[in-house]
């Protein structure tokens, strides 16, 4: 269906600006978009992934990366399932549609059979990785991860309660429980903010989560980070040891956020969008956004991204105890 979409033009001047930059000169040969591009966000306005998509949109518009206007369309619902479903059903092989994808859109179909999986879209590039840290309250008696783990090991399974802000936090707890051989009792909340609130209120013993909501409290000493689930130390929090260097053999656990196209688009189109996303990733705005969110830049593109996703899928399925159906 060939259609023109005039949805949600970012900024009033976009159209004029878009038309002014001569179509596709920046990328030379191959495919270039000929009509409005739709950026689908499979989440409601205001969340972390929505903000990142809007930053991508802002960079594309401000740096005039596209010869056509970019329109943003939020399709929230079902942990990303509604948005993926929308793209796979009504935007098949449409090179003028891009969609934000993240770990949640990969996890939802594992838990919810009717949700469309990421195999319904064509991954283009990943922008960033969110890290997971283990936090305790600032006045906790545990100063190091070793002290904490020893105490956990000395008590029965599930003695310790950890607040979670979503499925990914639960999976991080599973990673940690596996590494120390004792189960932690997850108490599920709706967001990282709620998990933080309950940690500060002393209603739970700890949290494993993304640093975003915790940064201010970490600096002020209201919460303490005992360890991070990655290979090397964090630039932002240089004094937080990694799990591995603390002698805890926990798998690396990070969440990704990237962009995909509808399934069935040509190689040319993919190459074009990979080029655009590379420019977005290299922009100062995007770099600042990632730094402000205490996340790690991780530009993975094309086949590498697909391989990365296949790995993540296996990891998630293992953690959730739902191995792929053979």
């Amino acid at each position: 269906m060939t259609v023109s979409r005039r949805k949600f033009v970012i900024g009033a001047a976009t159209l004029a600006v878009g038309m002014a930059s001569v179509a596709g000169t920046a990328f030379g040969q191959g495919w270039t978009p000929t009509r409005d591009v739709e950026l689908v966000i499979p989440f409601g306005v205001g969340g972390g992934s929505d903000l990142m998509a809007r930053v991508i949109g802002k960079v594309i518009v401000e740096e005039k990366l596209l010869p056509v206007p970019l329109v943003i369309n939020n399709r929230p619902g079902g942990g990303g399932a509604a948005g993926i479903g929308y793209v796979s059903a009504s935007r098949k092989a449409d090179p003028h549609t891009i969609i934000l994808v993240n770990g949640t859109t990969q996890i939802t179909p594992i838990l919810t059979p009717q949700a469309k999986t990421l195999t319904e879209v064509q991954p283009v590039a990943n922008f960033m990785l969110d890290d997971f840290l283990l936090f305790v309250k600032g006045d906790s008696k545990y100063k190091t991860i070793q002290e904490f783990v020893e105490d956990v090991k000395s008590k029965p399974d599930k003695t310790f309660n950890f607040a979670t802000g979503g499925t990914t936090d639960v999976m991080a707890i599973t990673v940690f429980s596996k590494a120390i051989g004792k189960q932690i009792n997850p108490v599920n909340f709706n967001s990282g903010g709620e998990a933080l609130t309950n940690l500060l209120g002393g209603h739970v013993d700890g949290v494993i989560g993304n640093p975003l909501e915790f940064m201010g409290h970490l600096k002020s000493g209201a919460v303490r980070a005992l360890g991070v689930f990655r290979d090397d130390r964090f630039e932002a929090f240089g004094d937080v040891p990694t799990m591995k260097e603390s002698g805890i053999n926990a798998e690396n656990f990070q969440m990704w956020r990237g962009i995909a196209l509808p399934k069935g688009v040509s190689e040319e189109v993919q190459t074009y969008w990979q080029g655009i996303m590379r420019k977005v990733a290299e922009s100062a705005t995007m770099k600042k956004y990632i730094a402000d969110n205490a996340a790690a830049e991780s530009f993975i593109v094309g086949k590498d991204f697909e391989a990365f996703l296949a790995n993540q899928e296996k990891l998630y399925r293992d953690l959730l105890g739902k191995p792929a159906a053979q």
Partner: protein
Amino acid sequence: MKLDAIKGEIAFAALFATVGLYWVAGSLDFAIWSGFAPDSGFLPLVFGVLLVGLSVGVIVMLLTTPVEQVVEREPLTKSFKLLGALILAVASLDFVGFAVPLFLMMLFMFSYVEKLPLVRSTIVSAVVTGIFLVIFARWLQIPVPVFPWSY
């Protein structure tokens, strides 16, 4: 005849009871209790049972209410016309965009249901459709598919 006068009310209460039954049946697909706490099926089961009980209670109350207390109801035809127009409009939103169905829906209500002058009805419907679409689609930048070709 008493039963005739209240059969609509009874059917309505029975609808709520049916929803309750559906929830009771559906809740059994899920675990009721796991580990320390109730699982996904627990509260739907409790709520379902409660709704069935309360709805049956309402039916019993209706049957035991003295006849003279049954209230006379106003005629239904007009409300059904409006509801029908609303449903038709919503059904066509997905195919022809918002502008045409909203305009036709209002025109139908003004000129057919309310028997208002045709010319005024047409003008008012067109102006209201225009104003609302400008507010939502342009000013608030909601991705409303306005026209048939807006998909």
